[in-house]
C-alpha cells in the first residue's frame, strides 16, 4: 500500500541553524501538508500546498518557515533559523481529491 515517507526520522540541530525536513507524498496525491506536534500537545496545522503554491498557512508558519516541491516527488519544509521552541515532531501529510489525509511517520526535530 502506498505511504507517505519522511526523512530523517530524527534531526538534532543547534539553535540558529537551518534545517530541511523532507517528505515524499503518495504519488497520485495533489494536496500536501505539514503539521507539527509538540510533545504532549495536539497536532497543529502549519501549511497546505497545492498546484505548486501555498494554499493556507497558520500563525505558526512565520517567515522562518518555507516549503518547496523541488521536483515531482519531494516536498520539503525548511526552517531558516531554528529556535528551541521549534522542537517537535513534524508530520507531512498528503491527500487525493476526495479522500482523507494520510500522514508520514514524522521527523523528530530537537533544537539544542
Amino acid at each position, binding site marked *: 500500500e502506498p505511504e507517505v515517507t519522511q526523512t530523517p526520522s530524527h534531526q538534532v540541530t543547534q539553535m540558529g541553524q537551518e534545517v530541511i525536513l523532507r517528505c515524499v507524498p503518495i504519488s497520485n496525491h495533489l*494536496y*500536501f*501538508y505539514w503539521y507539527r506536534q509538540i510533545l504532549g500537545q495536539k497536532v497543529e*496545522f502549519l501549511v497546505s500546498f497545492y498546484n505548486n503554491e501555498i*494554499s*493556507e498557512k497558520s500563525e505558526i508558519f512565520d517567515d522562518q518557515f518555507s516549503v518547496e516541491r523541488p521536483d515531482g516527488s519531494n516536498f520539503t519544509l525548511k526552517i531558516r533559523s531554528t529556535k528551541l521552541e521549534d522542537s517537535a515532531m513534524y508530520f507531512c501529510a498528503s491527500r487525493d481529491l476526495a479522500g*482523507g*489525509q494520510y500522514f508520514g*511517520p514524522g521527523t523528530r526535530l530537537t533544537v539544542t
Partner: protein
Amino acid sequence: EDKVVQSPLSLVVHEGDTVTLNCSYEVTNFRSLLWYKQEKKAPTFLFMLTSSGIEKKSGRLSSILDKKELFSILNITATQTGDSAIYLCAVEVGWWTGANNLFFGTGTRLTVIP
C-alpha cells in the same frame, strides 16, 4: 475560535469490552470529520465522515457523525490490546474542496488491559 473537544481524555478497559469515544466540534466552514489512531508516531487514518447518520465500519471499529448536534462517536467492539493507542478526532475546515487543513482535538488515550 475553532474548537474540537474529545472525551474522555483517557480510558482503561479490559480486553473484550466495548468502548465509545466522543468528539464534539465548533468550527466555521466544516467540510468533514476524520478519526485517526496514533500509536507511537504518525496518526493512522481510520475514517472520514461527511454526511450525518451514515455509519462507517471497518472490522470492529465504527463511526457516525451528527452534523446537527455537531459530534461524532467512534465505537470499538471486542477490544484487544492492540487497540491501545491515542485516538484523534480532526475536523477538516475550509472554503472549498481543496487543500483544507485539519483541526485536531487533544485525543483520547485508550488502554486495553489483557
